[in-house]
């Protein structure tokens, strides 16, 4: 019976190709809208998330706001890190500034000078393609050495392996000892324009005293909170004069701020999830409209085929048989629309991935949801017309002049 109804449904769809296609179009567009928008939202989420994760989810950024009593030193920080090695991995103070660099006649103005310590390499997940990263002797000797990003190498020398070449920054000449591996452009901008020099040299070059910004990495994402509290305790000790105990007993310190990368990740994930839901919801409305289109056409079909229903009933079709026939027809139309829509959106996603150069993927869950939802639409919006058809009395239906 069901198989027979399926065959009849396909026959009737093929008999009215244009109309069936137009009916399906509503579902097709709805499914494309839902799947593509959700894929874009998911793709953006995962690209934002992974770019944040590439910065290290176990990263804590400390900004010092107080200039008074700033007794932080590089060695002090390193000692602190060694003492709290249970939770804290590396510390790296940093001074950074946009600079213009030169090599011969060529000028590169988009570089960012970052003066830091060897630990920075691990904290920011940098990897060196040619040469080496900064070493402790570089700091001790305030050597004029630089480790540069690929953009810097490309722009100034047109090649990547530029070990031993000289670049000039603010009138000082640095010799390139390392070239970083390419990181690519992320939401936070290019990461390949760095010019990394020893921290001690940078302080002198940029007329910066003391430590204003430093990174701390926790040993693992699990101990970030521990690391943060240990760090705050240490900083409260140093900036004790600025410590305030609020009425609720919470200790706050206006001298510094600690920024937790995983907090940011959570915030962003929440935001993008809301965005995904919202986009899906909006696209869902077009699916709903598609469903109403199906109901509309099925109602037309019922009145057009009143005589057919009468004949079928006269020769022995019970109400249930007519109901199933029309319901299956609606489900087949919407299901086919769903499948076509899904195939088209797969194609569209491939095209968009290449055109926008972001990685989009249709997740199986979204595909299943799309097919399931389109079938559901067939059932919901097919039920009323099918029920109407099944309620026709055979005499009235036979007498009907269509």
């Amino acid at each position: 019976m069901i198989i027979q109804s399926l065959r009849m449904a396909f026959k009737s769809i093929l008999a009215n190709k244009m109309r069936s296609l137009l009916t399906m179009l509503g579902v097709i567009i709805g499914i494309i809208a839902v799947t593509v928008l959700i894929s874009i939202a998911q793709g953006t989420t995962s690209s934002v998330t992974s770019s944040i994760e590439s910065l290290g989810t176990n990263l804590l950024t400390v900004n010092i706001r107080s200039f008074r009593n700033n007794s932080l030193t590089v060695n002090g920080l390193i000692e602190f890190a060694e003492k709290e090695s249970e939770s804290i991995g590396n510390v790296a103070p940093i001074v950074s500034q946009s600079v213009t660099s030169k090599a011969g006649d060529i000028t590169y103005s988009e570089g960012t000078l970052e003066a830091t310590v060897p630990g920075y390499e691990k904290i920011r997940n940098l990897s060196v393609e040619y040469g080496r990263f900064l070493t402790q002797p570089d700091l001790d000797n305030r050597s004029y050495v630089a480790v540069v990003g690929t953009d810097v190498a490309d722009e100034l020398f047109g090649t990547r392996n530029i070990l031993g070449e000289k670049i000039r920054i603010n009138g000082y000449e640095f010799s390139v000892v390392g070239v970083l591996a390419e990181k690519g452009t992320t939401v936070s901008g290019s990461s390949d324009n760095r010019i990394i020099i020893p921290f001690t040299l940078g302080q002198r070059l940029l007329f910066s005293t003391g430590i204003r910004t430093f990174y701390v990495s926790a040993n693992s994402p699990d101990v970030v909170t521990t690391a943060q509290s240990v760090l705050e305790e240490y900083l409260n000790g140093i900036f004790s004069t600025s410590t305030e105990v609020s009425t609720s007993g919470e200790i706050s310190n206006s001298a510094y701020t600690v920024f937790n990368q995983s907090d940011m990740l959570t915030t962003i994930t929440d935001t993008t999830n809301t965005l995904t839901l919202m986009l899906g919801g909006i696209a869902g409305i077009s699916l709903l409209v598609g469903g109403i289109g199906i109901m509309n056409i099925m109602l037309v079909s019922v009145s057009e085929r009143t005589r057919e229903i009468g004949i079928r009933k006269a020769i022995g079709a019970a109400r249930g048989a007519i109901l199933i026939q029309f319901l299956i027809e609606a489900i087949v139309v919407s299901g086919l629309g769903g499948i076509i829509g899904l195939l088209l959106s797969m194609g569209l996603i491939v095209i968009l991935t290449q055109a926008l150069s972001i990685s989009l993927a249709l997740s199986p869950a979204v595909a299943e949801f799309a097919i399931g939802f389109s079938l559901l639409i067939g059932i919901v919006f097919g039920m009323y017309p099918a029920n109407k058809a099944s309620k026709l009395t055979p005499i009235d239906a036979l007498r009907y002049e269509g």
Partner: protein
Amino acid sequence: MKATSRGTASSVRPPEDSKEGIHMIDMKEIVKKYQMGSQTVYALNGVTMKISDGEFVAVVGPSGSGKSTLMNIIGCLDVADSGQYELNGKPIAKYSERQLARIRNENIGFIFQGFNLLPNINALENVELPLIYQNLNHSRRKKQALDALERVGLSDRIRHRPGELSGGQQQRVAVARAIAGKPSMILADEPTGNLDTKTGKEIIGLLRELHNQGNTIVLITHDSTIAAQAQRCVYIEDGYVKGGVRT
């Protein structure tokens, strides 16, 4: 070509030994009325008639006589307002819509004036239609449908759609559809009404042939020359049976 061999129909068929005592159709005081505005119109006003197994009966009457209403009630398409109608010894007044559909499917083969074939499917599929609702499997369905088409002489037209067939051929497909399910009765409502005299005669000839093979046939017509082809005529006028003639 009796339906006695069919197990599914046995519920509404009399047992073999009591066959003589029970009529296929036994109607007593059938009344059917319609409300036309404030007026009540009696389409049937106490019709009593009996039709035996294997008979070829013509129900004759002018238009408006109530014969179409009678045919709807005989064919279980409609239910009487009062009176008793027994089909194969079973009163059908209390049957549900679903049971009536089943009786129509298994016991009655309809032939209509306007053929009433489905235009989008071919002759074979049209003939198979009642068998689908009998839940027969594919091969059995096809065999019975092909047999029926062979009996009406259309074996060479099974892939044609109704629109590609002449009126006479279409009505023969309808006859094949009526007999495909091996019903106990064939109910023909003005089967020649849309045909020219020659093809009309062919169809009546086909009905006579089916009768000779043992089918019970009820023919509804306003044309007394066609009615004369039947074994027996029942005249109906103004909702009453006016008399019967055995030809």
